[in-house]
């Protein structure tokens, strides 16, 4: 319709020629320049962290630029290893345990639930799923205090489990897993498996789970990040610093920098090391986090 009603248009080549003259028209330089500027904003603070990690206490606090002759990275690393009898690496190990095991189990639990929501029809299904979606909206920090009090009734406060168990729950992961199952698990394949006499759980284990593996990795990646980054829950639950994850350990060191400036380089290099595994994971698994954000956004 519009093609009939609209006035005769200039030919494509004409519009092409006119385009650069329009005042709001975008030039290649402007577009890529803006993107570069934004990239500088996101990357420069990380660059500062890298150079700051190689400075000694005086140069760091004095804001002196890093020069090769004042390279202090090795000394900072050994100071980090010695501080509090190597407590930092204990925190690091704790974080790897909380986040590694927690994210694998969480992703598995989410994929099981997402698969059940996708494959089966059962009474009250959409109501239960709606409840799960509402769970996405609950501010997690509002849950931390009652969880702390419940955990103290159960004598779980200041234990590994107090931080580990709550991190297995991610309602958004169930939602993502359902979306992924809808995309990766065709009903016909499951029907064929049933015809062959495979049981329901066996079908899930040997066929469904394999097909939805990309979704599993995506949920794992996001949950790993969430647990690694979690600060509020460990802050509330833990008082024994041998159970701390890296985030809480760095926070406790940072609180000491006022009285003991030698903690400054420890906090900085500790932060750098704590960022490395996530940066590596996100660079290596680009396909997966992009898929996760797409699945979360389009539906």
């Amino acid at each position: 319709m519009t093609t009939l009603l609209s006035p005769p248009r200039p030919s494509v080549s004409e519009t092409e020629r006119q385009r650069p003259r329009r005042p709001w028209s975008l030039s290649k330089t402007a577009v890529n320049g803006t993107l570069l500027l934004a990239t500088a904003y996101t990357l420069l603070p990380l660059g500062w962290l890298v150079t700051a990690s190689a400075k000694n206490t005086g140069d760091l606090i004095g804001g002196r630029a890093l020069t090769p002759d004042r390279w202090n990275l090795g000394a900072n690393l050994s100071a980090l290893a010695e501080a509090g009898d190597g407590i930092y690496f204990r925190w690091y190990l704790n974080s790897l345990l909380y986040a590694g095991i927690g994210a694998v189990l969480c992703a598995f639990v989410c994929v099981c639930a997402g698969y059940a929501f996708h494959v089966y029809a059962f009474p009250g299904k959409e109501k239960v799923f709606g409840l799960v979606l509402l769970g996405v909206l609950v501010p997690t920090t509002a849950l931390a205090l009652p969880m702390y009090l419940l955990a103290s009734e159960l004598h779980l406060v200041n234990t590994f489990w107090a931080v580990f168990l709550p991190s297995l729950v991610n309602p958004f992961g169930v939602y993502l897993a359902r979306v992924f199952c809808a995309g990766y698990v065709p009903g016909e394949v499951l029907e064929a498996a049933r015809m062959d006499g495979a049981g329901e759980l066996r079908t899930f284990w040997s066929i469904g789970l394999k097909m939805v593996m990309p979704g599993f990795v995506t949920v794992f990646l996001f949950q790993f990040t969430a647990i690694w980054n979690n600060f509020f829950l460990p802050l509330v639950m833990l008082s024994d610093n041998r159970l701390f994850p890296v985030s809480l350990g760095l926070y406790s060191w940072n609180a000491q920098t006022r009285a003991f400036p030698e903690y400054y380089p420890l906090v900085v290099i500790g932060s750098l090391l704590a960022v490395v595994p996530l940066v590596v994971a996100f660079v290596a698994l680009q396909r997966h986090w992009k898929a996760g954000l797409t699945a979360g956004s389009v539906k």
Partner: protein
Amino acid sequence: MTTPTKGVRRSRYGAVGALLAPFLVLFTACTLIPIGYALYLSLYTERSSGLGFGGAETVFTGLSNYTRALGDEAFRAGFLTTAQYCLLYIPLMVGLSLLLALLLDSALARARRFFQLALFLPHAVPGIIAALIWMYLYTPGISPVISALDAVGSHPDLLGSPLPAVVNIALWEWTGYNMVIFYAALQAIPREVLEAAVVDGAGPLRTALNIKIPLIRASLTMVGLFTLIGSLQLFTEPMILHGVSPGVISTWTPNMYAYTAAFERGDYGLAAASSVLLALTAAALSFVVTRLGRGRAGKRTEVTG
């Protein structure tokens, strides 16, 4: 399709139960029960009896914890701070990430994969570390940013104005993340739609405003919703600035208020009541945002339909 026999159906329900049970048990234990317990706690107050040696007794006090929280100037100030934070941060972040996504989606952008990764990378940095990095970058003496600004003659007091300082940290953490969401949604727009717009003579700006943005409204609503819920829970970043920036007091946000009430004053009833009020605010605002998103989408289909 053959109708499943009774035995098959029973085994299917068994499978549903087995697959859903782990999540539902954990969800109940770590979400539903804590919500219920917070509601319960908020209705009781602990009173230490006598000299304090006999332990404390818990008394039902109805809504008095709520009136105490709402009557506390510090609590209301925390809500006001959060409101200001939301009004400054959410439009800035959504606008900036949408702009970057549109630029990246335009035909002129180069090195798309690199830009996507580089802009997303701050999301890989734990919030506590992001806050630490920026705290150092705000601190005179340590910060190269401040020395550079000093050199050109302006002497900003970055720690003196906590609100922009916290907004900047949040922008750094979340702009790239949400940019990727918008970019993914933009890429999902059918190419025919965009080609039709070009044929109709629409320039890149008009295509962006009249076609691309309306088509990714669902993503905008979702990002708005999650950003809002996240903003209401503001805690980590101001916790790091607390003590360095004189403006950030221990009750600067409602969450910090609840934390202080529980762990510095031991007033669990008050802490629970303020958490519940925060969660109710989140629920009410989420409802408004989803309604707004849906309402507009509904209007649009009416117009086109």
